[in-house]
């Protein structure tokens, strides 16, 4: 039997994986965007689970908003990446450390 806590653990794991993806990935910025997307999906799972188990529709509404915002974020993220690429012709995260200290 799959209970709510299974879902919750699942989404928490998903979240952890996506976060791990952010700091383990040292090559490409695009992967970052994917991880971020995954992270938001983990949150979505949570909302849906709660919404389902409490018979309340608001959680699912929330998910729609999150999805919409995530799309917008991806767009902006890509835009930033494009401008970054234009300047330095590379998407390696390793090279982005001019700001430090």
């Amino acid at each position, binding site marked *: 039997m799959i209970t709510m806590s299974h879902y919750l653990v699942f989404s928490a794991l998903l*979240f952890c994986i996506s*976060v791990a993806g*952010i700091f383990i990935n040292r090559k490409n*910025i695009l992967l*970052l965007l994917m991880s*971020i997307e995954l*992270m*938001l999906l*983990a*949150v979505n799972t*949570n*909302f849906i*689970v*709660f*919404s389902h*188990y*409490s018979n*309340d529709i*608001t*959680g699912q*509404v*929330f998910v729609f*908003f*999150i999805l919409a*915002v995530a799309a*917008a*974020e991806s767009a*902006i*993220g890509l*835009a*930033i*990446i494009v*401008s*970054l690429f*234009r*300047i*330095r012709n590379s998407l390696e995260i390793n090279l*982005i450390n*001019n*700001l*430090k*200290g």
Partner: protein
Amino acid sequence: MIIHNITNSLINFIPEVILFTMSMVILLAGTFECLKKYVFHLTVLSVIAASLIGINYLSTDSHLLFNSSLIKNNITEFFKYICYFIFLIQIVISKEYLKQNNLISGEFYSLLIFALLGCFIIISANNLIVLFLGIELSSLSLYSLIALNRSSFLSSEAAIKYFVLSIIASAIILFGFSYLYGISGSINILDITKYANNNEISNLYLFSYVLIFIGVAFKFAVAPFHMWLPDVYEGAPLPITNFIASIPKIAFFVFAFRFLNNNPIIDDENFSKLILFLGMFSIFIGNLFALAQKKIMRMLAYSGVANAGFIFIALFSALENNFSIAAFYVTSYSITTVSAISIITFLSSKKFNLIYINDLKGLASKSGYIAILLMVTLLSTAGIPLTIGFYAKYLVLDALVDRNLILIAVIVVLMTVVGLYYYLRVIWFMFFETGFNSLINTSGKFSIIILSLIPASILLIFLFPDLVFKYIFEILT
């Protein structure tokens, strides 16, 4: 009934509506050659219009708008007007800078207004969804604003860093929201508070709060979630830095207030200790990092980290729902930091790029007045008497001592002494050293008057602080 509700809500929400519309208008205006040069004026006009119209609809009692997804009361209005004030100063001062960096455009101001709007929504939100949207509205605008200077190496880097980290923070907050929703079954913050008051605090509830406040800590740039701040300060165009340093802080303070007000979580030992610890840690990290900085913006950033720590300690000390200390601290800090960054913006130009603290050498001999303004501002940040910053630090210490946390007060105070050093270093470069770049343009009567507004009020409020205190204490307790 619904229609009536909506119209009533819209009327109460009219400043935001104006801002929204005007930002669209400005965006459009920017695309026409003939109107392009008026975008700045339009922006100023729209902000002034919004604030003036808003005054008409001020009332002392609290309103719930749009099906209680937004709140309008004294607190929100107070902070909004502070934001208006700050925002106006920022855009007026930044005009010259933007012109010289070729950044003036419709989208710039439009996005800036959107960011402001996002912060207003955070301030007013009473609903997790609206709150989330507010956060994202301001963040999304800021991502693009930071990256706006497309030719700049550093801007893009700052943007990507801010983008990634900020989304992590948003996700953490959202994760907390999801638990909160799961426990209480509601996304209305008042309902959640009600729920918490009626039920015992479960571990999950605590976790959700911890998650949310880690997100808040990120937005405040409290250590160890502060890394983005110095990079953004350094990389972003100065007007944007100016915005990020001040208005979101105010917004997120109200966010924190909304979540903590009347909430039993504040008495939870683990939670309050977390806040306290984060605050202390932040003061440590901020001051120690700032000490070694050579670049002025990074130094200000780390000083911001230290001050964020103070804000957290002030939140911690909000015993018996007394958020006034934190509110005062946030206000005073935002105002002073805006003053500091505005002065730096004013001094920066294409010909003279103010990056290192060294670059301020001998400013006093070139323009004593501006040096004095900057000195007053910095002393206020350091919390020396004769400035409003003194009261801010005073109140925090007072609260700590009242709670009998003398040792913590002493540690905090010792770190302030460390912090004093780097503020004094700026002052000594300005006053005691010689050799200021003569190319600097320190003319501009109007800008100087605007610049002196905040230092003057810093000094004046020091002399007659009671009105401010009374008002803040009244609305927040």
